[in-house]
């Protein structure tokens, strides 16, 4: 018998009784942008609330003097930013900042989710540079985790980000920034 057959036959022997199971529908609630911003900031990420007209200027200001990377299909124009041309991991080390959009923001937990969609690029570009700037439109913010999960393309690589990289492994003292970006900025664009 193969390992698979052995395991499955043991599961069958256990014959766990099946009971009715109902998933409760989570009501769709209007998302609170204030709550989202507050909870993102709670993780010591920097939050900017800007209007559509202010996006480019804010991005240009954040990126000034930094070697800046964006996904190949990023929608905003930033002076001097370099579009991802399939750089090697070693080449990505030379970038200080990456700017991306995201798929959804979840107010309940202050989380942004990247699903490799428009303007987000592959996972490595938001991982290796030490500074991640993420743009989210107000209409991309949802209230609950359930609503957030519905809005992403699950079969693409997903990254749920709630604040910068952190550890409390030494004497439970929180240290921001171990391996992932040590600095996270979120630009919330007003509707």
């Amino acid at each position, binding site marked *: 018998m193969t390992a698979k057959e052995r395991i499955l036959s043991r599961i069958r022997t256990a014959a766990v009784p099946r009971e009715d199971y109902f998933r409760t529908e989570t009501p769709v609630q209007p998302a609170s942008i204030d709550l989202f911003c507050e909870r993102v900031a709670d993780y010591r990420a920097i939050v900017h609330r800007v209007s559509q007209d202010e996006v480019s200027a804010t991005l240009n200001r954040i990126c000034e003097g930094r070697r800046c990377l964006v996904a190949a299909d990023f929608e905003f124009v930033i002076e001097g930013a370099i579009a991802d041309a399939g750089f090697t991991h070693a080449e990505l080390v030379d970038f200080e900042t990456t700017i991306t959009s995201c798929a959804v923001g979840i107010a309940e937990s202050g989380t942004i989710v990247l699903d490799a969609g428009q303007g987000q690029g592959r996972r490595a570009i938001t*991982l290796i540079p030490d500074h991640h700037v993420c743009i989210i439109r107000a209409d991309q913010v949802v209230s609950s985790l359930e609503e957030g999960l519905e809005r992403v393309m699950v079969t693409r690589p997903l990254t749920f980000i709630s604040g910068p990289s952190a550890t409390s492994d030494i004497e439970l003292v929180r240290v921001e920034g171990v*391996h992932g970006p040590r600095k996270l900025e979120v630009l919330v664009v007003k509707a």
Partner: protein
Amino acid sequence: MSGGGIRPATSFTSAARETLKNRTLRANLGFATRTICAKRERVVDEIEDWQATRSAGAALKDHALANLEENLLLLEKQVEAAGGTVHWAATAQEAVEIVAKIARSHRISEVVKVKSITSDEIELNDSLKKQGIEAIETDLAELICQLADDSPSHILVPAIHKNREEIRQLFATKLGVEIESSEPHRLAEVARLHLREKFLTAKMAVSGANFAVASTGSIGIVESEGNGRMCLTLPDILVTIMGIEKVLPEWSDVATLMRLLPRSSTAERMNPYTSVWTGVTPGDGPQEFHLILLDNGRTNVLDDPVGRQTLRCIRCSACLNVCPVYQRVGGHAYGSVYPGPIGAILTPQLLAMADENANTLPFASSMCGACYEACPVKINIPEVLAYLRGKTHKQPVELAAFQVAYWVMSDSRRFSAALRGKRIGASVASMFGLVKGWTDSREMPEVPAESFRDWWRKRDR
């Protein structure tokens, strides 16, 4: 002995006697568990109905386990459809062999690891080392344990038994870097620089899994530092070892899990990073993905109607933090990678109640029930502890004593007679040292001059 398996080397009592002597451990643990518990309360209180959320978690996991076969088969189908390879491992040895074979087939002698208690359970690091493959831990605490040749003492914060000065000295000796200060942010920086090189050059990563979704074939890893993202994104080959009980039926089920897990584990609304991937994505991340579905005793647990709830466990470690026994003896006393209350029920069951030392673990409890209260998926740990105590081998003297007690207590006349004779009984018992284990730390109760029954009979009506 980093990554120490699940077979305790001694009984819990002997191990605990040793660990209780370690004052640093007790001080660090006391501080850590109190801090996490206080923080946890704040984020739990934010949830409108935490009890309903716990019940939803328990019901979800029970539902997933009741349909385990079809969930696993669907997961296998979906992972393979997305370009991954699925392996089944009935035992720890089989799982290790699969990992080693994959590494050998690519001539790889060094792999980077995401923190994985399942890989510690199967003693992956030591077994790979014997085959000439070095496994490098990348979680800060796991790295500390690995450099110190020490085993983890807590599920969430494995190096909590070490203080900053010990860690500074360890890094100085083992990594050869002079560190001017033992500030945690400096020590974390040292780990960052040390591991960055490894991440950028590693060809293969090994991870565990916090969940898998059957309907989509997606796997999820929950972490804080970003070492997980590094391992899941940068190498060419990824091997994930997952206990079969981690599979969830639907993608939407992840919401329930993620509302419970970070709050119960790190006491945060959400952990910094959760990565989810489905098979292989061209141009993004590892281009070869293997999923190993591990049994290693889990079907023993599933086969027991009372013990089966143990498999709901999402490895959050909330039960450790609230346990008065764990807080004092620490994780090493349990002799298994699964410490604390959950370890006391999981370890002996994974070993099919056949390991003498593991069978002492269900006795490592005051039965106060705090673990049950804290458990986000409502595992009734005290119930399982009591049940497992009943399944362990009894001493002949103890068995005889309970048989006598049963005979006496099942008849009211015999019981009355016994109560009258108790004064003699109590002194005989203490004379022969029969109750010594009990009275070592407790007073022998005073025997009243008259029993309640005698008083009741004689009272004025």
